[in-house]
């Protein structure tokens, strides 16, 4: 277990206590310190959608305010609030995937054998990711974001949405193939 420095814990606890006392300037400091990491975290996990981002960031801060009394300084405040953000993102993913039909075996795409590891050397990678995710259907995109951005296993995702790990794997396989096909299209300049 990582031992936290006493000064980080004390500073974070002091800020949390001041916010709980409804000190307006402490609350401003709380927003100033954590809005960037929370926004960044949610933005990349919602992409390319921008509409839910602001609402989710706001929900995170309001939930944090309601739960701040339970914060005991066992982790930095930044980690604690990102934990709330993580729950909000997963609630959103769960809602999306629960309402989507899942692919059957017969619908699986043929595996794409083109080697992909060299592609990350290209500087345009970051811009391409958002563009390609925007072209994918919402269920494929959500599956990829949940699995790779949120680092959750197919089993964990399956448990959250009431599906088998195998069904989630099939969805992921389809999503990966579509993503790769789009990537290769971009590489070919199409």
């Amino acid at each position, binding site marked *: 277990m990582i031992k936290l420095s006493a000064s980080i814990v004390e500073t974070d606890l002091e800020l949390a206590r001041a916010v709980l006392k409804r*000190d*307006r300037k402490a*609350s401003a400091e709380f927003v*100033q310190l954590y809005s960037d990491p929370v926004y*960044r975290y949610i933005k990349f996990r919602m992409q390319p959608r921008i509409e839910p981002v602001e609402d989710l960031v706001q929900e995170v801060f309001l939930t944090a305010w309601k739960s701040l009394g339970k914060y005991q300084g066992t982790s930095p405040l930044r980690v604690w609030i990102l934990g709330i953000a993580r729950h909000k993102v997963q609630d959103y993913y769960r809602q999306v995937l629960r309402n989507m039909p899942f692919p059957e075996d017969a619908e699986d795409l043929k595996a794409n054998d083109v080697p*992909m590891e060299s592609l990350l050397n290209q500087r345009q990678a970051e811009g391409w990711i958002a563009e390609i995710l925007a072209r994918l259907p919402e269920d494929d995109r959500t599956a990829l974001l949940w699995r790779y951005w949120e680092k959750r296993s197919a089993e964990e995702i399956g448990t959250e949405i009431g599906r088998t790990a195998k069904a989630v794997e099939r969805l992921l396989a389809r999503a990966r193939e579509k993503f790769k096909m789009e990537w290769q299209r971009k590489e070919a300049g199409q």
Partner: protein
Amino acid sequence: MMDEKWFEEIAQLEDESTTLAPSCLKSRLYSRLIEEQELDGPLASLKDTVAAGRGLCVFEKLIEILPAQANIQSFQYCTVCHARVAGERIENAPIYWANCPYCEFQNR
């Protein structure tokens, strides 16, 4: 699995980004948070804020030195300040005075 590794690396690229939240969003978040806090009770007085070592803006300082009752000290003066209006609506709003949260939220 090659695919797995490739997708993990792609996700990692974005986690290292330095994207900032828009200043308008920070301003609206702060206003909303204060509204929510006021539902649970009065804000800490301006005197308590100063005692805790936090600075006041020029308008709050004027109120703080008045021999005013606690409810006057607890009022959120930002709700009637043009800095809030500008901060919530204009990205990098031209507001520039010390100890104003809406000024501090600007990504300058």
